[in-house]
């Protein structure tokens, strides 16, 4: 083998080695970074799941505590007419606050995500958002709804809606996503007529056309609402 051949082989080896290092660097830089991102993302998802589990557990405990308190109040009321009168008053107030399960004639409104459209300026327009739910709830209350629940979450006098694209947060609940079902007890004919009105719910109706967001509703002779199972605290309010 001539010295020229040896030099060629050595040069090829150096080039191959350099290419190997470059490729290894590339793999390290571009494969490890995404894997770190995935790990961080998974950690965040785990945190959300743990917090949601704790949230659901707290709701169960609150419902159970309210049940026990009701039972103890019932026992006390059985021994005193004055206590019974007070208990009746509180029962009525609890019913109006959403703390008691109820049923009656009403409507069920369904909201579902549409399909993404080409509109760059409104990339999440196809998603059902908290304003849509807020608008439906306000419309039904304006038509005399006496109680309401959204995906099984009872609406109370202090309820609020928030969230980001496609997520609907009601009070202390974990976010809800499409499909969303709003159930209301009240005058179903009046509520159905309001939902039928093409001028009502302009935000949803515009996106029905643009993104095929679904809005459907149905009257029923008997719909059920669960009791509220979360916090109803007013620590800053004092009676005058």
């Amino acid at each position, binding site marked *: 083998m001539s010295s020229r051949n040896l030099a060629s082989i050595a040069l090829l080896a150096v080039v*191959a080695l350099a*290419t190997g290092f470059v490729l290894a660097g*590339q*793999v390290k830089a*571009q*494969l490890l970074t*995404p*894997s770190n991102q995935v790990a*961080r*993302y998974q950690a965040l998802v785990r*945190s*959300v799941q743990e917090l949601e589990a*704790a*949230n659901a557990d707290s*709701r169960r405990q*609150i419902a159970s*505590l*309210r049940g026990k308190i009701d039972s*103890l109040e019932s026992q*006390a009321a059985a021994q005193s007419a004055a*206590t019974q009168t*007070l208990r009746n008053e*509180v029962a009525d*107030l*609890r019913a*109006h*606050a959403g703390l008691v*399960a*109820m*049923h*009656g*004639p009403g409507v069920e409104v369904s909201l579902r995500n549409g399909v993404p459209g080409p509109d760059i300026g409104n990339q999440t327009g196809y998603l059902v958002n908290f*304003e849509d739910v*807020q*608008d439906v*709830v*306000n419309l039904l*209350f304006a038509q005399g709804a*006496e109680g309401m629940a959204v995906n099984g979450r009872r609406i*109370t*006098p*202090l309820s*609020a*809606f*928030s969230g980001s694209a496609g*997520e609907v*947060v009601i*009070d*202390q609940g*974990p*976010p809800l996503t499409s499909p969303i079902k709003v159930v209301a*007890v*009240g*005058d179903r004919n009046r509520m159905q007529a309001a939902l039928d009105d093409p001028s009502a719910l302009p935000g949803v109706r515009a996106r029905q056309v643009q993104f095929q967001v679904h809005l459907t509703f149905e009257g029923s002779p008997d719909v059920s609402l669960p009791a509220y199972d979360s916090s109803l*605290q*007013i620590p800053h*309010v*004092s*009676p*005058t």
Partner: protein
Amino acid sequence: MIALLVALVATIQIRSQAEVERSLIGADATSLAFLIDDLHRANDSLADEKSDLGKQRAQLESGQAGAADQVLTDEANRLRAIEGLAPVHGPGVVIVIDASGLTALDLQDALNNLAAGGAEAVDVNGRRVIMGVPVYQTSGGVTIDSAIVMPPWTISVIGDANRLGVVADLMTQQLRADRRVRAATYRVEADVMIRSVLTEKPFVYAVAS
């Protein structure tokens, strides 16, 4: 051989990035961080509720004379405040919005923002507002519980004054950018008085289960 190696690495690289993108669909890390923050606050609130309910149960179980009456009286007073049936006071904010052309949807959004910011009692121009009180658009203007509320709107809110102050600041900033709004201001107050009350409405259709 080198070309084969390059192709292999490139393939691995492309597949890996596709996997990452698939796993990130739905929510980015920032959204998840906000969600975690919200869930922490929600769970703290639920913990407070559990604690209060635990105290009520303990009081009822104590068997002391008048314990049930006291629990029921406290509960009635609390619920009457929540349902807007009693005058109340406490720390909070007062927002004044002078505008022409604002609609019921604008007022509903403002009230919802305040509720999400921890409002515990609200009054607009002397009308008590809770979730469920109809805020409606008519040809004569915005009505609350069938009464027209003419601008300027003075919204009195009781709750955590710090939290409500942040919400009011953001709200008034956004409102001032709206052409329909002549002025939007707020002030934080140590004691906001709300004297307006709602009238109890008996259920016509609903039956307790």
